[in-house]
């Protein structure tokens, strides 16, 4: 009788193994998972309702804050829908800048994912390496937009900042470094036995199931589904750029790792082309405050998959309805399927492999000097060198190690 007994254990909403609030109720028989119930909504902030009560201009900034990782995804997806309703002809240069920022965002998101995946399988060296390298792209984004996350580059009718020649040189330099590192990670992922053995056959999702459950993004592409919004439903400047849609037939976490790493190489290809082909000209057109009545649906290939925004306008300054469907919501259902009859120990990496979204942000530190009573603002570069110096004083010096690492 005892063998038939199933145990139900709750994991979350707050749990050391989870990076963001979500709740799983797992039915176990021994170490094997027999069923999973997922409860989401702990991050629901009522943004769709809030959008209806604000102007379109305010909504661009509100929507950008849906996610701390793919903020550009959401703001671009939203402005595209509004521009379609208003019939605005967005200048080409603006579309190219949106594409460049979008791809840089994908690069930092995939690097972030690689680190999380490394951490979840106990390969923390990979986490340290990939997150160190991610700083290169974060610095590029900060240089181009002024922010590491929530770039604020989009406005209705175009973008807010241009890219100059000096910046283009810097971006190209950074891309060279990142490409070199990505090649190294592809070698690690495809040759390192521990990674291959740990990830192969884990979180299986067949092509048929991926289609049936409506999986999107790298999760679907690693199950052999050749679907990428950038190619099928091109937006921004993608129709004029050449790139390959990466697919894989492993249908497991290993396949998802390979797809993301190879996608990085395509992102570099896109950024290089876009920087070269970017035409001269204005970066925005004037948008009316009142958007004529209408509706539009906009899609965007986020780092995690298809992002969908539906906007309905009523001729006023405020939208009638804004509907957002982020890619994780489309993928979460596949997790239930992937976990069935698998071991509990696989759960963290299987959940991480769909790359559920969590936010991060840290920017400027404001200091109140207790002696002089003055308020000082410490910017990112200053904060960085201050922390390096502080650690040096404590006897912790990374200079030698950094040199050694950069020669790898």
């Amino acid at each position, binding site marked *: 009788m005892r063998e038939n007994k199933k145990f139900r254990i709750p994991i979350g909403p707050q749990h050391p193994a989870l990076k963001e609030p979500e709740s799983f109720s797992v039915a176990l028989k021994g170490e094997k998972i027999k069923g999973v119930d997922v409860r989401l*909504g702990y991050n629901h902030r009522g943004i769709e309702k809030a959008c209806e009560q604000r102007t379109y201009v305010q909504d661009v900034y509100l929507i950008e804050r849906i996610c701390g990782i793919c903020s550009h995804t959401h703001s671009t997806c939203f402005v595209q829908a509004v521009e*379609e309703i208003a019939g605005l002809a967005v200048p080409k240069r603006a579309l190219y800048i949106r594409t460049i920022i979008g791809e840089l965002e994908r690069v930092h998101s995939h690097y972030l994912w690689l680190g999380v995946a490394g951490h979840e399988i106990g390969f923390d060296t990979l986490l340290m390496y990939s997150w160190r390298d991610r700083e290169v792209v974060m610095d590029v984004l900060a240089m181009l937009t002024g922010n590491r996350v929530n770039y604020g580059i989009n406005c209705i009718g175009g973008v807010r900042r241009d890219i100059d020649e000096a910046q283009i040189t810097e971006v190209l330099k950074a891309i060279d470094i990142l490409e070199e590192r990505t090649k190294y990670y592809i070698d690690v992922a495809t040759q390192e036995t521990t990674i291959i053995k740990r990830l192969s056959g884990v979180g299986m999702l067949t092509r048929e199931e991926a289609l049936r459950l409506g999986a999107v993004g790298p999760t679907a592409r690693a199950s052999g589904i050749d679907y990428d919004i950038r190619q099928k439903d091109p937006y921004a400047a993608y129709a004029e750029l050449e790139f390959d849609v990466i697919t894989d037939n492993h249908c497991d976490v290993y396949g998802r790792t390979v797809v993301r790493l190879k996608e990085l190489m395509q992102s570099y290809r896109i950024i290089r082309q876009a920087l070269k082909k970017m035409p001269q000209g204005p970066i925005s057109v004037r948008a009316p405050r009142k958007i004529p009545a209408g509706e539009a649906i906009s899609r965007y290939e986020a780092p995690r998959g298809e992002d969908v925004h539906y906007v309905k306008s009523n001729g006023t300054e405020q939208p009638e309805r804004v509907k957002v*469907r982020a890619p994780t*919501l*489309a993928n979460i259902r596949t997790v239930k399927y992937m976990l069935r009859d698998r071991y509990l120990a696989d759960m963290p990496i299987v959940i991480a492999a769909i790359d559920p979204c969590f936010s991060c942000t840290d920017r400027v530190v404001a200091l109140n000097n207790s002696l002089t009573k003055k308020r000082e603002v410490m910017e990112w570069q200053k904060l960085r060198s201050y922390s390096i110096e502080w650690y040096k004083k404590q006897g912790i010096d990374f200079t030698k190690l950094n040199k050694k690492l950069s020669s790898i």
Partner: protein
Amino acid sequence: MDTENKIQQELISKFPYLDGKVKVQRVRRIFIEAEEANFFEVFEYLINSAGFVHLCTITGLDEGAAFGVIYHLSEKTGIVVNIKISISKEKPVLKTITPYFPGAEIYERELTDLLGLEIDTLPPGSRYPLPDDWPHDEFPLRKDWKPKEPKPEENKNA
């Protein structure tokens, strides 16, 4: 636009009541307004014969006199079809589409929580996305629902 126009013509020839209700808004975007009674006929045709096998999402609207529900479907070349139906406010009951798209469950739960549409019938499961202690007669996305000002927090140390 050829493919989009072809889909439009095929829909009208197959379902004459859709005449004037199918609009090609731009390349890769088709909007259909269907009656609730005919919805599944058109829906099944799109899935089985026109290749619209991916459900992007479901949007719920409060349009004053009635609720609007839009099903956004896409196919492999990137065309998106948006089928809209109206649901009366007196009897806000909607048939589930989970037999066609199991992933639709979470979108339908969202309609229930945020607009108060009843879904006929979803398997038992937890609500989404509102908290468990959210009042059962308050639906935030309805136009007559206004957010309340949060009470100022009491300073317990004072």
